[in-house]
């Protein structure tokens, strides 16, 4: 404890892929970096994601979550990052003064810049308000993943999954391999919210039925879940009378979405985007609070950890530049970047005037084929890319080059 640094150029909060990559790149840029994580082990949520499919983008290899995490953990240590494990950041001030708690002790930490990389949490039953009894046997898919993969516990024998998010799909296959019977996946939307490859390799491989445009209307059971009533839902998300049927199961997993973990951000006055539930950032990943940066799932939910890590690396470089070089002079009004036709959100939400290159990440509102994504500056096309398939489950990234420096009143990303 006493050996722990109390002052650094950059403090990174969260040791998942985004935080690790961010800490490593800030240290590579010459900053003195402290990384704080509340768990004993670094790697964040990746430690429980023991399936493969990570790293193709970042390393050109197919890795499991823990293997992918190990690469970034090594990278952070090699870069000279000081790690404070088992430590929660309890308070954060706009002056970049933090209060950390570890094993009942509190200590202060001060930084020139702070990177928020706290990840996300899962939506729960309470947020869905499904009527019925409150029996045991209802878990979020991530909790079931933790119990199965980290604690070697069995969550149930006959499992129904509500929501077709990737974690639920991965758990459908995992629990099938563990000997459980997965009786179905029920999805409110007319299309799945997980990646197509997970529909194939997690559901179709095992003949697990996917009920699209359906949802749960009631949970039954006294002590343990006994069954769930499911009905077809219409376009206005209302159950269609007469379509109800009952599915017998002893366990219900919820895979109904992730929410960025922004409690700390909110308290320090970080402005949040109503669509992403993450911070409003500029093209350096800096929030409205000077010196406070955001990346990874706490900024917007990523479907690929590879991209969360890449975003972290970019934010870390910028946080180091801020810490070592002081706030940029400039002062020119930033340019708003707005989602246009067919686009749900765009990150970052603003760009600096004069930027030579800009990377935008966005999601489309509905599944579609053969569309073109365009980035417009005051109505003029700056960049475009053909999307053979557009799907809300898949984040899209586009690089926009502007050799003469970006200058416009407003940027827009849209589908045509």
């Amino acid at each position, binding site marked *: 404890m006493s050996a722990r640094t109390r002052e650094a150029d950059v403090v990174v909060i969260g040791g998942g892929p985004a935080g690790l990559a961010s800490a490593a790149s800030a240290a590579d840029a010459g900053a003195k970096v402290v990384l704080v994580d509340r768990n004993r082990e670094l790697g964040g949520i990746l430690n429980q994601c023991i399936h493969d499919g990570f790293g193709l983008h970042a390393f050109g290899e197919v890795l499991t979550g823990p293997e992918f995490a*190990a690469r970034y953990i090594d990278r952070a240590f090699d870069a000279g990052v000081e790690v404070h494990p088992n430590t929660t950041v309890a308070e954060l001030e706009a002056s970049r003064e933090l209060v950390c708690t570890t094993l009942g002790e509190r200590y202060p930490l001060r930084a020139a810049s702070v990177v928020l990389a706290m990840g996300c949490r899962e939506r729960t039953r309470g947020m869905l308000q499904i009527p019925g009894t409150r029996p045991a046997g209802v878990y979020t898919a991530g909790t079931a993943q933790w119990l199965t993969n980290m604690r070697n516990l069995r969550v149930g024998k006959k499992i129904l999954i509500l929501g077709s998010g990737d974690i639920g799909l991965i758990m459908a296959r*995992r629990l099938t391999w563990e000997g459980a019977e997965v009786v179905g996946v029920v999805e409110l939307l007319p299309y799945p919210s997980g990646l197509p490859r997970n529909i194939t390799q997690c559901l179709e491989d095992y003949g697990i039925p996917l009920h699209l445009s359906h949802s749960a209307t009631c949970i039954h059971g006294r002590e343990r879940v006994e069954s769930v009533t499911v009905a077809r839902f219409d376009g206005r998300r209302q159950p269609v009378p007469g379509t109800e049927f009952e599915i017998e199961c002893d366990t219900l997993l919820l895979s109904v979405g992730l929410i960025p973990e922004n409690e700390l951000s909110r308290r320090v006055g970080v402005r949040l985007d109503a669509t992403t539930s993450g911070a409003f950032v500029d093209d350096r990943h800096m929030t409205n609070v000077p010196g406070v940066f955001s990346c990874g799932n706490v900024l917007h939910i990523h479907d690929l950890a590879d991209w969360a890590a890449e975003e972290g690396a970019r934010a870390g470089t910028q946080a180091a530049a801020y810490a070592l070089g002081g706030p940029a002079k400039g002062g020119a009004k930033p340019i708003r970047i707005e989602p246009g036709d067919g686009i749900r959100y765009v990150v970052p939400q603003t760009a600096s005037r004069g930027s030579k290159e800009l990377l935008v990440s966005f999601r489309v509102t509905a599944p579609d084929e053969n569309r073109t994504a365009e980035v417009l500056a005051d109505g003029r096309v700056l960049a475009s890319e053909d999307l053979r398939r557009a799907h809300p489950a898949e984040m899209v990234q586009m690089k926009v080059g502007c050799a003469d420096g970006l200058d416009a009143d407003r940027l827009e990303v849209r589908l045509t």
Partner: protein
Amino acid sequence: MTTKRLTCILCPNGCEVEVSYSGEPTPESISVDGNTCPRGVDYAIEELTAPKRTLTTSVLVYGGTQPQASVKTACPIPRESLFDAREALRRIAVDAPVAIGDVVASDIAGTGVDVIVTRPVPCSP
């Protein structure tokens, strides 16, 4: 002529490829369309002739900071061997410490493939 749509699972792009063949599917008779990269062709041919998957699961660990270590088959194995491989791994336990890449079983379920550790488990203090 048989025509099918498959989702290539080799990378997160998940391309939807269209395959067609007449008679029995063989590497020579299958034609593939819609793949973004050449690996999509290999995937489609393998998927129709001898589908393979990687098994990712865990084995028990004694004396470690965690009760189990996650493991994977070093390469994809025939899909019909997945459950046999999983069963065989239930009977395997290793002593801590284990490191990424340690082999916990070889020739799993007669596939000729090793099973390796994917998450390090140090000894418990």
